[in-house]
C-alpha cells in the first residue's frame, strides 16, 4: 500500500447508531450526542492521523462543525458531507403527514434560508416541474447550512447523496439524478459523491449509463465478513477492482463492531483501488488507537 489513504472519522456514534445492536447504541450513553464531547473526539482523531470528518448533515453534526471551526486552521478537517439526513426526513414526513407535507416543510426552510440561488433553483424546479433544478436547490441549501456552521474557510471536500437516495435512484433507473449531481458539484468545485449499500450494482449501472467515475466519491461498506455488502463480498470486490478512477471510501470495516480493528485492517489493506476509510469512534482512547493504527497500516 503505497498511496496515501484518506482517513475519516464517521459520525454514526454521534447519532446513537450501532448496526450491531440498538441496545449497544443506547448503552453508550448520552455523552456522544453532546456536540462538545463529539467535537473532542473528532479533534482527537485528527491529532492521531485522521484527515477529515464524514457525516450526515443534521443539527447535531452542524453543532460539532461550529465547535471545530473555532479551532486552529491547520487542524480543520476535510469535510465529507452526506445529504439528506434520512432519519430526520422520515421523522418530518411522519409529523407532517406524508411526502407532500415533507416537501412543503422543506420548501419553507429553503425559502426562509435567504439563499437566493437555492430559492431561484427551487422556483424554477416547481414552476417547470424540473427535478434537476429541485436537486440543485436542495444541495445549495445544504451547502449554505454547512458553510454557515463550519465557516467560509472550511474544507468542504465532497457532498455525497445519502444511501436512501442513491439506492432508490439506482433501483428506479434515475440516471439523470447521478448526472445532475456530478455536473453540478463539479461546477461548484466540490467532489460529487454517493453513499450506497449496493456498490456492485452502482458500478454496473454507471457502466451501463456511461457515467465517468473520475473524481466521483463512492462510500460503501467493505469488511471481512461481507456484512451489508450486497449482493456479496465477492461481487463487491470484483466491482472495486474495476473502479480505479473513483475515490472509493469504505465504511462498516468493523462490521458494526463485530470485528476487531486489527482483523478489519488486515482485510481492507489488501483491497485494490481503495482511496479512503471512514470509522466511527465513541471514546477518546478509541479515537487515538484507531487512527494511530490505521495510519500505521494504511500509509
Amino acid at each position: 500500500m503505497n498511496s496515501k489513504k484518506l482517513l475519516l472519522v464517521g459520525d454514526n456514534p454521534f447519532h446513537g447508531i450501532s448496526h450491531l445492536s440498538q441496545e449497544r447504541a443506547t448503552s453508550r450513553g448520552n455523552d456522544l450526542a453532546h456536540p462538545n464531547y463529539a467535537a473532542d473526539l473528532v479533534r482527537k482523531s485528527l491529532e492521531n492521523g485522521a484527515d477529515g470528518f464524514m457525516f450526515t448533515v443534521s443539527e447535531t453534526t452542524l453543532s460539532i462543525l461550529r465547535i471545530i471551526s473555532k479551532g486552529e486552521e491547520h487542524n480543520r478537517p476535510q469535510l465529507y458531507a452526506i445529504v439528506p439526513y434520512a432519519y430526520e426526513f422520515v421523522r418530518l414526513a411522519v409529523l407532517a403527514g406524508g411526502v407532500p407535507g415533507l416537501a412543503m416543510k422543506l420548501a419553507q426552510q429553503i425559502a426562509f434560508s435567504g439563499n437566493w440561488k437555492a430559492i431561484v433553483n427551487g422556483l424554477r424546479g416547481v414552476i417547470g416541474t424540473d427535478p434537476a433544478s429541485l436537486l440543485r436547490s436542495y444541495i445549495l441549501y445544504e451547502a449554505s447550512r454547512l458553510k454557515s456552521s463550519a465557516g467560509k474557510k472550511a474544507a468542504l471536500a465532497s457532498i455525497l447523496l445519502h444511501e436512501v437516495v442513491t439506492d432508490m435512484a439506482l433501483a428506479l433507473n434515475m440516471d439523470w439524478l447521478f448526472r445532475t449531481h456530478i455536473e453540478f458539484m463539479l461546477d461548484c468545485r466540490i467532489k460529487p459523491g454517493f453513499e450506497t449499500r449496493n456498490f456492485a450494482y452502482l458500478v454496473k449501472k454507471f457502466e451501463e449509463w456511461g457515467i465517468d467515475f473520475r473524481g466521483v466519491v463512492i462510500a460503501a461498506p467493505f469488511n471481512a465478513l461481507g456484512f451489508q455488502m450486497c449482493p456479496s463480498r465477492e461481487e463487491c470486490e470484483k466491482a472495486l477492482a474495476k473502479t480505479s478512477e473513483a475515490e472509493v471510501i469504505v465504511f462498516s470495516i468493523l462490521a458494526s463492531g463485530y470485528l476487531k480493528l486489527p482483523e478489519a485492517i488486515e482485510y481492507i489493506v489488501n483491497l485494490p483501488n481503495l482511496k479512503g476509510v471512514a470509522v466511527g469512534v465513541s471514546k477518546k482512547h478509541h479515537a487515538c488507537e484507531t487512527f494511530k493504527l490505521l495510519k500505521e497500516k494504511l500509509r
Partner: protein
Amino acid sequence: MKAKVAVVGLGKMGLLHASILSVLDDVELVALCEKSTLVRRFGKRIIQGVSVVADLAELCGMGLDAVYVTTPVPSHLPIIKAIYTKGIAHNVFVEKPLASSYAEVEELCNLTRNQGGVNMVGYNRRFSVTFRKAKQILDEGTLQEPSFFEGYAYSSDFLGAKMGSKTSSRGGVISDLGCHVVDLALWFFGQLEVESAKLESLIGSDSEDSAYFKVRASGGPLALGGEFKSSWCMEGYRLPEIGLLIKGSNGTMKVDEDKVELKLDDGSSFLWHKHDLGDDVSFFIGGTEYLREDEFFIGSILNGSNAEPSFQTACKVEEIIDQVKRVKEKSRRNEQ
C-alpha cells in the same frame, strides 16, 4: 415469466416497494398510482418507463398480476375492494395494518375468500433473520413448553411531538407499531386472548400513544401468558425496535431485530447476531427483510402457492387490537 405489478400510493413505503420491485428479475413494474397532483407531476418526470396515473380505474386493462397498496390505512378497504371489483388484479399486497378496524378487516377477508388469488400483509418482521431463528428454536422445542412472554415495540417517532400532531392517520400506536410484535407473538404461539389493557394518550386527547396489555393463550394446550408494551414516544429509539423475551420450561430466549440470545437451564447459552444468520440480500434498501418479503410474495404468485402473513392471518392481529380497545372501553365504563 415476469409478474406485472403496480404500486398504489407514492409515499415512503410506496417508493420503497417500487424500488425493490424494480430490481427483482421476475417483476415488471408497470404503473404507479398516486392521487397527489404534485407527487404525480414529479413522479412522471423522475421515474422513466413506468406509467404514473391518478386513478385506480386507469390500472384496468394493464394486465396486472398484482397490486401493492401502500396508501394511508383508512383508504385500504375501498382501494382493495376496487382492485377486486374492477378486475384490476387477483393478487394484492397491502402494507400493514390491513385496515382501520376489525369490522373492515373481516369484510376484506370475506372478499378474498370469494376472489381467490394470493394476498399478503406487510408484517415484514417475519422476514428478519433473527425472528426466523427464534421461530425455528421454538418449533424445535429447545425451550420446551413456553410459559410466559413479554413483547415490546418502541420508537421515538412522536417523542416531543406537539399536541395535535398527525397521529390519527396512523391509527394509534398498537395499529402502527405494536401490530408487528402482536403478529410475531401469534406466529410464535398461535391464538391469544386479551385479559386486560391500558391505553394512554400523551400527544392528544384522542390519540393512542402508549399501550400495555396482558394476554393468555387460547384454543390450545398451552398454559401461556404474556404481555405487550408499546409506545412511539420513548426516548432513545431513533429506529423502531421490536422484541420478545420468552420463558420456557427449559430456559429463556430474547430476540430483537439485531440478535437472538438463548439461555438454557443446563447452563448453556447461545448468541446469534444477524451477521451469523446469513442476513444477505441481492439488493439492500430500507432493511433486508423488505426485499425478502417482496421476493416471497412475487414467488408465491408465480408458483401458485399461498403467501403468509395473508389477510386471514392479519385478521387475527386486528382481532387482538379490537379486543384491547373493547377491554379498555369496558374498564373505562366501569370506572365511571
